[in-house]
């Protein structure tokens, strides 16, 4: 069986979904959080997942890089089965970058060191090369001059941009954003969204769990609405926000728009 694995990964071509989620079920104890979720993401797509709290959005995202395991169904990234028990999760996590709601920077490392740690330790890349890339990434997220600042000295928005740069330093093929603006002051939300938009425009495959409906509408190629562990409705933003059919979607959109 293990011999099939490289073949499966090698067989993946960009015309097939880069992230393929098929009938995923997940329970925490007796609480079923995901009740058969399926969705496909093509390379370069920007997908937004919206929905009320507790609908399983974040859990779904965390299943994609195997931070959470699943009970049933299948998730593949570039053709590789994520929940194959024989899979080295570290290999998967090089392909899939993740940014969290609470930034989760390493508080004992400067902004630059935060970005450099994983490429040096995990990818074993030479320090000089990694540092050059880290400085370019800092500039890219508009934080030049903050290289030597500790996370505690940065605002929430700045920390979140360092966290994005930290993920990008691993050269991932897919970026997952888990409510990355939810903990930010309203005035710093924008600077983070600008960074994400630039990434999306460069063709990075992005999956976002978000409450920023305006942003989702503007940036997403496809929007999924989840409620109580299932995808209720999905579609391109142009039609999703105006032509929602399901009463649950309508109710949710009515509350927040």
């Amino acid at each position, binding site marked *: 069986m293990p011999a099939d694995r490289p073949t499966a990964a090698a067989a993946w071509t960009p015309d097939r979904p880069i992230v393929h989620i098929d009938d995923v079920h997940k329970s925490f104890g007796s609480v079923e959080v995901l009740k058969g979720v399926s969705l496909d993401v093509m390379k370069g797509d920007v997908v937004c997942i919206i929905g009320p709290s507790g609908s399983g959005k974040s859990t779904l995202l965390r299943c994609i*890089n195997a*931070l959470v395991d699943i009970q049933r169904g299948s998730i593949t990234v570039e053709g590789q089965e994520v929940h194959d028990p024989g899979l080295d*999760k*570290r*290999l*998967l*996590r*090089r392909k899939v*970058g*993740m940014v*969290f709601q*609470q930034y*989760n*920077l*390493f*508080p*004992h490392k400067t902004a630059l060191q935060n970005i450099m*740690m*994983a490429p040096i*330790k*995990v990818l074993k890349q030479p320090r000089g090369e990694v540092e050059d890339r880290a400085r370019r990434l800092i500039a890219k997220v508009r934080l030049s001059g903050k290289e030597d600042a*500790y*996370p*505690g*000295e940065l605002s929430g928005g700045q920390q979140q941009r360092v*966290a994005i740069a*930290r*993920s990008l330093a*691993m050269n991932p093929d897919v970026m997952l954003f888990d409510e990355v603006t939810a903990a930010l002051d309203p005035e710093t939300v924008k600077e983070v969204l600008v960074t994400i938009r630039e990434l999306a425009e460069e063709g990075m495959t992005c999956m976002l769990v978000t409450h920023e409906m305006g942003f989702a509408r503007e940036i997403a190629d496809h929007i999924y609405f989840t409620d109580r562990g299932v995808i209720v409705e999905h579609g391109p933003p142009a039609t999703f926000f105006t032509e929602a059919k399901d009463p649950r979607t309508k109710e949710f959109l009515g509350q927040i728009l």
Partner: protein
Amino acid sequence: MEAIEAWFLAFYRDTGINLTIIYDGFDRARFLEGVGNTVLLSMVCLVCSVLIGIVGAWMQGSPRAWVRWLAQVYVQFFRNTPPLVQLYFFFFGLGPLFVITVEQQVGQMTFAREMPLLTSFHWAVISLSLFAGAFNVEIFRSGIEAVPRATVEAADALGMSRLQIYGNVVLPLAFRICLPALNNNLVNLVKTTTLAYAIAVPELLYQSNQIWSDSVNVPEMMVVLLFLYVGLVGVLVTGMQRWERAMRLPGFGQ
């Protein structure tokens, strides 16, 4: 030097306060040897006990049950028994088992003689390190448990291995959190080195005892001992405080 010696000799004649460790060359040498041994014993045990703490705390977080169990047995055993009993156990209980046989020639005859493999100093290092290490395991565990799960998760999501996460993220943060408790235990360790007296390690207390037995200056030596320990522990505490300040992070744990 001679002037100082003469002054303290005169001081003894005038006041009856007998500080042989200053004016008598033999007592001074014994005393300095004691200071040296206490400092050496403290430093070696300090380093060993911290290493034991790091390894033990790592074992406590192992996914394998038997590894966790092993760490737990160690902590319970060494934390819940008196350090003097441990010292005796190692020196008198285990010591006789660790011997080498050497051949000794006396005239025409050859004798086989058993020699101890480890000196009392070695046994003191082993015993005191394990004693303080057991507390360090628990101290580090408290620090490790205080590291936010989300920070570890972020490192996990970056593809770092458990060992990389432990060494680069968890330990540096846990250290900062548990430094005050660690300080306490290390201060205790320095003071506990006096127990090595009981197995005749020539440390400060042991040498002082030799001196006051010979020179009959018990009260003087008691005062000297007390002040010397205040000084020794003071150096350690100052060093640790400096370290604590140097490790302080802007916006973390405040």
